[in-house]
């Protein structure tokens, strides 16, 4: 069989080359894009639905909704109308939310930054992995667990520390109390929130610290720096915006916390700046407190409060996100 005898080889038609995606790819892209905008749709829907439910209350009360301290529903629990007109104001709760969140950050940030530094630069490698996973596990603890633990274990100890602070620092207006009620105070709620935010701040700071360029670290050592002077000259300036961003993320988390605050805080409708006094508030725990017996307009007022809380945390998280993403450009 010689070569000439072979049958004709069918030359395949040259395939058309094009940059137009196939049909399957177009379907794929549309489906994935639709899934991708789900977060946009959900966030928009949250703002929309809370907005339309709360619109009446918000437009009736106006700016007073966030400045007024009173919360009174004219409808009694048995459905009859009360004598006074309803007033809805979350001023006291907003003040309380911000105070407890600030206490949480003030206590949580130093501890979290120290533990991030310890984990990244000091911890022996044998225990580092274990410690990191313990702190990550803490982030996954349910908030009701923190509430229960805070109420049963932290509160007695916290009361003692609050009395100690009051005894020695009562000349500072912040630590003064007008009545000797130390349990269920914003201070204790702040400590619980601090413990809840530590894992978040630690992991954000650790992330930023670990991005410190190795050559700068080694340059510092080569110039004769001790470990601490290296950290102060290289790591902390490099990671400063990471720390700030982590603190903001923690602030956002602390503001929206519900169950843990509700269990440990005594909710009172007045602005209380004495953090050791057992009276405070939190928008989220207001919603939980009033939801069970609310009806009609009060429900709408709670929706409006939820909308304010949503916008507040969104704002804080946006700022945090901007700061964290800007991080890592500085440092000596």
């Amino acid at each position, binding site marked *: 069989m010689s070569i000439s005898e072979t049958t004709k080889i069918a030359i395949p038609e040259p395939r058309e080359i094009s940059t137009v*995606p196939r049909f*399957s*790819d177009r379907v794929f*892209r549309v*489906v*994935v*894009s639709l*899934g*991708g905008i*789900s*977060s*946009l749709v*959900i*966030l928009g*829907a*949250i703002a929309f639905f809370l907005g339309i*439910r709360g619109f009446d209350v918000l437009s009736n009360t106006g700016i007073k909704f966030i400045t007024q301290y009173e919360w009174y529903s004219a409808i009694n629990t048995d459905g009859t109308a009360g004598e006074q007109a309803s007033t809805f104001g979350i001023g006291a709760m907003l003040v309380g939310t911000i105070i407890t969140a600030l206490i949480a950050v003030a206590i949580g940030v130093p501890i979290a930054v*120290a*533990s991030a*530094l*310890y*984990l990244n630069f*000091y911890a022996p490698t044998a225990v580092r992995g274990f*410690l990191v*996973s313990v*702190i990550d*596990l*803490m982030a*996954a603890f*349910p*908030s*009701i*667990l923190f509430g*229960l*633990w805070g109420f*049963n*274990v932290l509160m007695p100890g916290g009361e003692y520390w609050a009395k100690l602070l009051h*005894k020695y620092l009562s000349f500072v207006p912040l630590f003064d109390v007008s009545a000797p009620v130390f349990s269920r105070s914003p201070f204790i709620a702040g400590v619980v929130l601090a413990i809840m935010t*530590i894992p978040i701040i630690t992991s954000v700071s650790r992330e930023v610290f670990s991005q410190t360029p190795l050559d700068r670290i080694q340059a510092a050592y080569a110039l004769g720096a*001790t470990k*601490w*002077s290296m950290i102060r000259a290289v790591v902390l300036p490099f990671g400063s915006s990471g720390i700030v961003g982590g603190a903001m993320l923690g602030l*956002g988390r602390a503001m*929206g916390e*519900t*169950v843990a605050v509700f*269990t440990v805080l005594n909710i009172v409708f007045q602005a209380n700046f004495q953090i050791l006094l057992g009276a405070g508030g939190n928008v*989220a725990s207001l*919603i939980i407190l009033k939801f069970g017996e609310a009806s009609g307009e009060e*429900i709408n007022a*709670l*929706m409006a409060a*939820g909308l304010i*809380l*949503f916008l507040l*945390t*969104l704002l*804080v*998280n946006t700022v945090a*996100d901007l700061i964290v993403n800007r991080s890592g450009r500085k440092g000596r």
Partner: protein
Amino acid sequence: MSNVTAPKPMKPWRATPKELLPNLFAGIFVLCGSWILIEFTGLSGKLGAFLSASILTLISVTLIANYKSGTNAGKNAFFGTLVAIGGILAILPVASIIFTVLVKGTKGIYLGFFTTDMSLASVNDELTVGGILHAIIGTVLLIALAMVISVPLAILTALYLTEIKGPGSRLIRFLVQAMSGVPSIVAGLFIYSAFITGTGRGFSGFMGSLALAILMLPTVARTAEEVLLLIPSDLREAGLALGGTQWRTVAMVVVPAAKSGLVTAIILGVARIAGETAPLLFTTGGGDTVNGNPFNGVMGSIPFAIWKALISGSDESNARAWASILVLLSLVMVLFYTARKLGKRKI
């Protein structure tokens, strides 16, 4: 002849007893000093002991380093100790929480706790009456439904960010980040306002899982995005070079390669929502009987059972709350451990 003795191995960098002497003194100083502080000042309790011991350790370590090697070494030792104390302070609550839950929770655990529900038990009944079967079934159903809703959306979001890299990538990444900061109570309120009031539909398990899905989505999407970014682009190019379309490449090369990472992402999402309480208070109604139908009727769940027991406040229900939280914590820890194990595996 063969009487050669090998030289004893030496460790010249080891501190001699004489050099260790200050450390011994420092240890004695810290122990005695903190005893004196607790005995004669206002400090008390475990935390007080910890505080005084750490302050004294800080002082003595700094002084020793300062005396031995100068001011810089002193500063270094001071801040090194301070940072270590911070690390211990961060770990302490976890230890305390786990210890408390184990001690208080085991009292309420018995076999019937897992096989009966609370429909025939009141809050003041003995611990041997009633259990959390309804809550366990409810939690499992809620989590399963929330997964069915949120996992596809989350994975599609991650694919949009890593594979399509569409024009909205930056915005979507930001929105997912923002969504992870949405307070859980807002998710519950949203579901309540959009699907429950004014529609005539009552509380049900499905509503609860909608709220949980909102909270789960960002966690899964962010972790999945990180995992997909780790897949080398060589794999994608190889898939395309073999003539595959993008769809085939993603479905048959990228996603299978990232499988264990994606499972980790899902488990982390489940761990995030397993203990959520606030959104369930607005959506599920929290029944006391076993309800296998998530679309109709109130449905209990472990966090809701804890909440109810906590509110009622009797000793027995408090013990039930701790026992339920032990169950919940074990669930979270098992999930977390599994995620770690899977996450360590090479992609």
